[in-house]
């Protein structure tokens, strides 16, 4: 019997059975099957371009967040007075355009293959929530341009927002509130939902085509 083995048993004996760290660790280990968090193998049917648009969406989101962080350093009016700021703002805008384009094509692909099959309903629902939250984030971004365009959009939007009864808490005529929603609350929500969505994809695996045979 080795000394290390006896020490490990004594350590196990001292650890309470209901330790929250142990419960959390075991919960994390159960969430994604072993080897599926960052797999290096996929089923043959994944060898199609339509399966690429999910990761393209995530890649675009990374560029959106990175350029948004640079814009935050310069300030909300930086892009009006600096060629570098204008360039970074353009990167931010076009990465958002690509983000939505890739996400919608990803949505079309998953819709036509009924990607909610096989216990993947929550994966589908988190994708829908991420899509809707992204629209809200883009909307607050248009309201944060600090120009006449943002004024026009907010003036046009206020009646619609008030009509659904949330104008008292989400005032599109308040540029400070809209900016903070755009750079703090909504990106945080999208980040959390995206992580949950990807974890669920890794937990349940990529959905097979409808006509795929077992083991294909």
């Amino acid at each position, binding site marked *: 019997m080795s000394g290390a083995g006896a020490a490990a048993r004594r350590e196990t004996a001292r650890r309470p059975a209901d330790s929250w760290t142990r419960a959390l660790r075991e919960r994390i280990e159960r969430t994604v099957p072993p080897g599926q968090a960052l797999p*290096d*193998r*996929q089923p*043959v049917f994944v*060898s*199609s*371009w*339509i399966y*690429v*648009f999910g990761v393209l969406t995530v890649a675009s989101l990374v560029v959106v967040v990175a350029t948004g962080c640079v814009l935050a350093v310069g300030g909300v009016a930086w892009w009006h007075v600096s060629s570098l700021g204008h360039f970074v703002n353009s990167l931010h805008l076009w990465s958002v355009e690509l983000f939505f*384009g890739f996400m*919608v*094509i990803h949505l*079309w*692909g998953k819709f036509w293959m009924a990607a909610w099959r096989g216990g993947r309903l929550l994966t589908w629902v988190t994708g829908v929530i991420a899509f809707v939250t992204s629209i809200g984030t883009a909307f607050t971004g248009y309201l944060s341009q600090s120009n006449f365009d943002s004024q026009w959009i907010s003036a046009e939007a206020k009646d619609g927002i008030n009509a659904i009864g949330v104008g008292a808490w989400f005032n599109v005529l308040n540029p400070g509130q809209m900016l903070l929603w755009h750079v703090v609350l909504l990106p945080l929500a999208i980040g959390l939902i995206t992580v949950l969505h990807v974890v669920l994809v890794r937990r349940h695996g990529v959905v097979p085509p409808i006509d795929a045979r077992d083991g294909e």
Partner: protein
Amino acid sequence: MVRAAAVMAASPHVVHWGWFRIELANLLIILAMVVVFVIAMVVPFGRSAWARDDSGDRP
């Protein structure tokens, strides 16, 4: 390209089909996305070693 973009930004062209109307720029973007979607469905992904590997072991 820049001139074309400037012209489209200055005076938005709107397409009408009866009750349906859409700005030309938005219509072109949607059509481009549909084209990309169709291409993604029909173009082969490529002969990756992983797809050819019958044993299932990726290099």
